[in-house]
């Protein structure tokens, strides 16, 4: 027998337990989570602020406040800040979230003594200059206009409006007029209200030792004083409008985004649901991919995924397909839903998806910075690394019966919000 048919034995995953962070408290009370990892002399500092889109008085405020930070402080103008960052080969990026926003500094460890004071100035004393504000606002507006042309974006926006309901904070998207109704005064007051140490947390990863933490404490935290938190978040009940919602748009492809709200991340059947999602559309060999791409060729890709946020969790399915295949894709989706409800997933397939998902978890810890990112996404939902261990154990213990029961409960196409953007 040719050796090429002599398959190597596949071994089960070794138990995977990421090292927990070292937690310390800075001089002004800010908590710092340190993840020492990797052998490159690089470091990432994430300053996480409870100042996301759910806190903003009007669209764009949280995004522009964060983006404008590095455009000028009382000590340095935007040109100087940009030059210092570039000269040291460093990056200072702002990411806007629903509940938290993050300012991340990535640099070579040896440049920290130069760059942390710069970061401190940007965070402590931003001035929100008019000129830079106008340029950035205009660039964002153009980006917005461009995105409005993409069927993928249109489908995603329509989807979230109907999944959460118009009034829900997760369904608030900028509109043309929002770009006219914003000014630097709004940003300044948002900054004053929300950028306080009591609403901040630090995550540091890479080559992190005591001296790194000392530098951060000394320059970023000492003298930046604690004020009481202002981050109010009100509860909000989603108002889902299930069924098809169609946006007409010219083009050669149609984008489809479908989904519904499901149990939260800390629910006991969440890990099993992730497994069901895996079987359905969570990896390259999933049911949806095999049927709709690999068997029929209707699309370049189709996937399903679970999105967990503080105010709710949903399963989403996304694809872009030729306009003429739109109905066929929806039919095949419904067909795969039904199949999972009526037939048990074969053991070999179930085991394969379990192995894939636990491998995927290990793979996500790639590089020195990823560990902090993963921890942070758990932390935002009030969880920590213990979750991962329990999650993998529960996912692996899930039976085909459980998957079928979950499919019967959660894979009813008539319960889904289906957003469609394209030419009919």
């Amino acid at each position, binding site marked *: 027998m040719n050796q090429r048919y002599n398959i190597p034995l596949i071994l089960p995953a070794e138990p995977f337990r990421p090292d927990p962070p070292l937690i310390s408290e800075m001089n002004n009370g800010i908590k710092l989570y340190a993840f020492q990892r990797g052998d490159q002399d690089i470091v990432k500092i994430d300053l996480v602020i409870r100042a996301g889109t759910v806190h903003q008085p009007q669209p764009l405020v949280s995004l522009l406040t964060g983006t404008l930070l590095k455009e000028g402080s009382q000590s340095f103008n935007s040109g100087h800040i940009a030059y210092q960052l570039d000269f040291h080969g460093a990056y200072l990026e702002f990411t806007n979230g629903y509940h938290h926003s993050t300012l991340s500094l990535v640099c070579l460890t040896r440049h920290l003594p130069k760059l942390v004071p710069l970061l401190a100035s940007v965070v402590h004393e931003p001035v929100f200059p008019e000129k830079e504000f106008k340029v950035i606002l205009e660039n964002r507006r153009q980006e917005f206009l*461009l995105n409005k042309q993409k069927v993928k974006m249109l489908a995603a926006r329509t989807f979230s409006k109907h999944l959460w309901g118009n009034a829900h904070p997760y369904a608030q998207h900028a509109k043309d007029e929002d770009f006219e109704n914003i000014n630097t005064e709004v940003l300044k007051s948002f900054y004053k209200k929300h950028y306080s140490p009591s609403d901040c947390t630090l995550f540091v990863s890479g080559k992190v030792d005591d001296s790194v933490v000392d530098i951060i404490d000394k320059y970023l935290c000492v003298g930046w004083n604690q004020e009481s938190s202002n981050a109010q978040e009100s509860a909000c009940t989603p108002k889902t409008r299930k069924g098809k919602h169609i946006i007409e748009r010219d083009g*050669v492809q149609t984008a489809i985004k479908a989904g519904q709200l499901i149990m939260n991340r800390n629910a006991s059947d969440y890990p099993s649901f992730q497994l069901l999602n895996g079987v359905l559309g969570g990896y390259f060999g999933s049911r949806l991919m095999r049927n709709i791409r690999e068997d029929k060729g209707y*699309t370049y890709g189709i996937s399903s995924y679970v999105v967990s946020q503080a105010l709710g969790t949903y399963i989403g399915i996304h694809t872009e397909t030729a306009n003429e295949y739109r109905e066929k894709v929806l039919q095949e989706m419904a067909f795969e839903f039904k199949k999972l409800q009526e037939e048990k997933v074969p053991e070999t397939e179930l085991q394969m998806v379990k192995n894939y998902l636990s491998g995927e978890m290990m793979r996500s810890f790639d590089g020195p910075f990823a560990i902090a990112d993963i921890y942070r996404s758990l932390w935002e939902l009030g969880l920590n690394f213990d979750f991962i261990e329990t999650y993998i154990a529960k996912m692996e213990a899930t039976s085909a019966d459980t998957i079928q029961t979950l499919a019967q409960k959660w894979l009813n196409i008539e319960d889904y919000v289906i957003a469609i953007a394209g030419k009919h």
Partner: protein
Amino acid sequence: MVHHFDACSPMVAVNLLYNVGAKDENPQRTGFAHLFEHLMFGGTPGVPVYDDPVQEAGGENNAWTSNDFTNYYLTLPKQNAEIGFWLEADRMQGLAFSPKSLDVQRQVVTEEFKQRYLNQPYGDVGLLLRPLAFEKHPYKWSTIGEKIEHIQDATLDEVKEFYYTHYAPNNAVLSIAGDIQADLAFRMAEKWFGHIEQRQVKPRMLPLEPKQTKRREITVKRDVPLNGIFMAFHMCSRTSMDYHTSDLISDILSGGNSSRLYEKLVKNDAVFVDLNAYIGGDIEPGLFYVTGKVNPKFSVKEAEQRVRWELDRMMNELVHATELQKVKNKAEASHVFEEAHYLNKAMNLALYETLGDAGMINNETDKYKYVTPMDIQRVSREIFCEDNASVLYYLSESLNS
């Protein structure tokens, strides 16, 4: 074969780079290398579904095709690294060549063509700019192909011929990086690949691109919100001494918010909403791009003139030592950041080994160090010469109706 040990995570990357890309295609069958990449996942006599064992082993796999290369990679939990060796060796020996797989993948690639190139605003820029800049060299078509018909007409015989003339152990580099010791990696490679016979690989004879002697331009109108200017200039090859100088030139112009184009033309004068200068990264003499979307308050001609002034400055004035130092520091730092991922390391090692020596990866930052202001000026004069420019005016229908 190349190996690199990195125990940052308990994973191993198995990367196999074949020295074949879109430039090796028959001009009547463009897009073939990329279509073929899809077919490599269509199964072999021994492994009907390539992905099954990968996923069972907790692994992930993918591939990409460029004008120069086709690269396949897997990342696996370290205890299952051998699965990657086995699977890659298996499909190096032969494929199932199923007509159904060809039918389906032709259609999948057609949808990819639409999704990525036709149904995106500005998505067809590459399809328009390449044939303007290149008259003879196969870089004139994109990896997706010159047109959809070329993909739709591909036959199974052509697929087989392509496989047997390009997919061979003597035309590939295997690169292993991650939590695996060298002796184990080499033993596994020997075990799975050692007996695969060499094949007759078609020698590469690419037509030379004649030197461009006159500026070229085309104009199109599309349903996009802003007017775009897309310029391409011929530049040196990946292995030329001037490659790193060209890279630094692109950083002086547009690396970061303190760069010349961003500071002057985006931030201060707001002529452009977004403006970039970058090198294509091609192996053969390729293209240096300057691309931007124009603020509607300015005419396209005016905007282009402003870019031209900056390019002229690169040609006429020596760059200041501290500005040059800034972009060198930046290049060094990006190199370190990139190396923080085992899969990147595996890919880069395979690339450098294909270019002649994996050890080059250690000298990359040095090559930037020795670039002088005179070099910057000399290379800028070669690249930014007006006769060397191909310009695509990509106009917005609504702004120009």
